[in-house]
């Protein structure tokens, strides 16, 4: 039997739709990726509040301090047994801010404390910051979703 020559040609697959969809998926994940998670400690369970609102604008100078219940502080993925060990980091941050004409009060100290931490330990950490003339604090909390516990 004689075969039709046209049948032996490889069939072309239209990839346009698949590529369109794949690029859309990539765009979606790229937009949602959160690089700020490097500042977050995995061990911290933040307290909940229904009034939690993400800051409207990011501060130019910010330090995110993670406070664990026993009083150790995690900053930039480095663990410090006590808040007073952060003094050189505070000084460096103040130097960086001053180079841009900012005052220490312009540096926002974001405290991410575990919900079981004694409040006194949070205040001790704030006192350490105050010793370095840092007085602009933000206590970070997690949004309480309505209807959830």
């Amino acid at each position, binding site marked *: 039997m004689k075969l039709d020559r046209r049948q032996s040609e490889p069939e072309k697959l239209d990839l346009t739709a698949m590529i369109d969809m794949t690029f859309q998926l*990539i765009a979606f994940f790229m937009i949602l990726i959160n690089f700020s998670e490097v500042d977050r400690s995995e061990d911290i369970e933040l307290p909940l509040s229904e009034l939690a609102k993400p800051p409207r604008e990011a501060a130019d100078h910010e330090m995110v301090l993670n406070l664990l219940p026993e009083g150790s502080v995690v900053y930039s993925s480095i663990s410090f047994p006590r808040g007073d060990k952060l003094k050189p980091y505070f000084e460096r941050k103040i130097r960086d801010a001053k180079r841009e004409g900012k005052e220490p009060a312009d540096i926002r100290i974001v405290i991410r404390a575990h919900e079981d931490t004694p409040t006194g330990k949070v205040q001790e950490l704030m006192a350490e910051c105050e010793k370095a003339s840092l007085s602009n604090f933000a206590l970070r909390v997690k949004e309480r979703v309505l209807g959830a516990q």
Partner: protein
Amino acid sequence: MFSKSLKGTTQTPELEMTPMIDIVFQLLAFFVMTFRITALEGDFNIQMPIQSQAQSEIEDLDQPIVVTLRSGVNRRLGGIKVDDLPEFVGEDMFQKLAAEIQQRAERQRDPASDKKLIVEFVIDYDLRYSETIGAVTAVTGRKLPTGETQQLVDSIKFRDQGARLD
């Protein structure tokens, strides 16, 4: 024009898609694997004495409402005291605190007055941080049915260092 050979036959140029698809899928796999759904986080702004010293004298003249948080069983909130009022105890402490602050806020919402409503917290050293945040939430404001937040106080301060209120 370029697709025509000299002999006049038509040839469409072949675009090699395989490397692009490889890369695109690798990118997609990276983003899918690093993607994590996290709950929304927000901040409560707190002023400490250094900053308040630098503020205007008018604000310094405003007397803050002193809210004292006492630690109770299992470091849970045992009682809330607002200035010299009798201590709030029981399940509905936060509601009572919010009602008291709202009452004072409404009293001070006199357009002729430029007085600011400041709340200063005196907190038991051992009190769980979650309880402190509960009290800070109660004085900060309330969620309206429209979803917006009604701000009650202008400023929140912590009195330096946790006190032992035994």
